[in-house]
């Protein structure tokens, strides 16, 4: 029975030789206050005097505390500091053994969601400087994601303009739990700026935001919250479609990160059905919603869903298309996926290379 799992087979020579693009790596500060070194003194003083205030209920713990501190237990660098704070160890544990040709950084940080908009702009600029200083200038395989103060549209566009000429930054980060749905008009200049520079917009799931995490209020358990973190990227994709953003910006690329991908197929079917019967309400949406998804949206794989019968994953790949999904590991977090073991079905070789590498090469032009 192919579903029985015992001691796993060793990786084959072909797997070891496969080059991989990892669309989601999370670098970390060495110390909680490392960002202060990258802030101008005016904001360093502000942070010390008044704190760093996003709409998160506490500092020093998460309101939905994670298993194992949210980390791979083997990812703590022997030299000290938190997981993914040490480039040397990241190379030895992750980039080298998995044969990663490009790893794209996502800095999970409060900058885009700070309630003080001027501090938000300063914090995001500091995050981008930190990415360059600590990672992008040190390791040519790593690429950056431009962090922006998204609730201050003009400042966000200015930050994109300031970084867009640096080829080490390959996309713009937009937190899908903004003050308004992601496709609303206030955010359009951000998408226009990204599209103008040919930078995809990457939306990564977020553990807190301005609203409750379900339409019925906040869930109780991390189990539910970790399920619901996939909701905002679903909502963001829906919003960009129904607000007409993809219709206006046919060159805009949207990459949805760390929400898995099984939901995308039924969501396309549902959107198409509702659009077909209610399109008079939303005349700016001129095509079936799934057309925009197939033209302009990609999903990263992690956390790969685990069907009770592994083989059922084949149905999903057929419904969604192997051209829509790009491998991501989420290193160094606990729900990390291994490129050669996360898909426990026999993918065709061309599907596997598309998912592990080729789709990302095409989307980002590597």
């Amino acid at each position: 029975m192919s579903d029985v799992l015992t001691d796993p087979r060793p990786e084959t020579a072909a797997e070891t030789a496969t080059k991989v693009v990892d669309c989601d790596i999370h670098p970390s500060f060495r110390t909680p206050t490392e960002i202060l070194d990258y802030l101008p003194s005016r904001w360093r003083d502000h942070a010390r005097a008044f704190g760093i205030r996003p709409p998160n209920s506490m500092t020093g713990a998460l309101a939905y505390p994670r298993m194992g501190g949210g980390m791979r237990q083997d990812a703590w660098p022997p030299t000290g500091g938190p997981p993914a704070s040490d480039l040397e160890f990241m190379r030895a544990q992750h980039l080298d053994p998995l044969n990663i040709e490009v790893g794209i950084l996502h800095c999970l940080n409060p900058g885009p969601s700070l309630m003080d908009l001027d501090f938000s702009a300063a914090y995001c600029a500091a995050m981008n400087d930190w990415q360059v200083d600590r990672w992008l200038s040190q390791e040519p395989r790593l690429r950056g994601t431009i962090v922006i103060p998204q609730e201050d549209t003009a400042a966000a566009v200015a930050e994109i303009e300031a970084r867009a000429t640096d080829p080490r930054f390959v996309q713009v980060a937009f937190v899908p739990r903004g003050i308004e749905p992601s496709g609303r008009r206030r955010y359009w200049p951000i998408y226009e700026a990204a599209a103008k520079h040919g930078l995809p917009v990457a939306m990564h799931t977020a553990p807190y935001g301005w609203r409750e995490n379900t339409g019925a209020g906040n869930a109780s358990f991390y189990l539910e919250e970790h399920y619901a973190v996939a909701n905002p990227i679903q909502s963001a994709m829906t919003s960009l479609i129904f607000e007409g953003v993809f219709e206006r910006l046919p060159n805009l690329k949207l990459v949805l990160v760390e929400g898995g991908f099984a939901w995308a197929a039924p969501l396309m079917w549902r959107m198409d059905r509702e659009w077909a019967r209610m399109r008079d309400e939303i005349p700016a949406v001129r095509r079936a919603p799934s057309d925009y998804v197939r033209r302009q949206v990609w999903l990263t794989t992690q956390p790969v869903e685990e069907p009770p019968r592994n083989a059922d994953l084949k149905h999903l790949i057929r419904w969604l298309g192997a051209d829509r999904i790009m491998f991501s590991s989420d290193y160094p977090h606990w729900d990390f996926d291994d490129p050669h073991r996360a898909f426990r079905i026999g993918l065709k070789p061309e599907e596997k290379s598309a998912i592990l590498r080729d789709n990302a090469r095409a989307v980002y032009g590597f």
Partner: protein
Amino acid sequence: MGKHVICRLEELPPGSSRRVDIEGREIAVFNDEGRLAALGNRCPHEGAELCHGLIRQFFAAEGAGEYEGTGKRMLRCPWHGWEFDLSTGQSYVDPARVRVRAFDVDVAPGEGLSEGPYKIDVYQIATEEDYVVLTI
């Protein structure tokens, strides 16, 4: 099947673990509060090295909020937290389909180790010390 001397017992103090590679196998050996245990080192799920996992008791609950320690020792995979019975290697979350191999592991006095079936590649055996011996 053979018996392998892994290390001196003092090199595997309580609360520690180590990976050993024997006969082409990776094996994780644990000293759980003085009791030794050994499991295949790779998690059947995505291949994490179980020697980095935590050993804790199994918590059960009859109803919501009624947490109850059972005393049963479980290994938590260092990546995705899947729990394995430390003595049998059986998975809690998918017992019918998932299991890691468990191996016999014991403490043996140095005296006598230089004779019989033991495979000693690395160590100079001192008769006054105790050694960790794995049967594979």
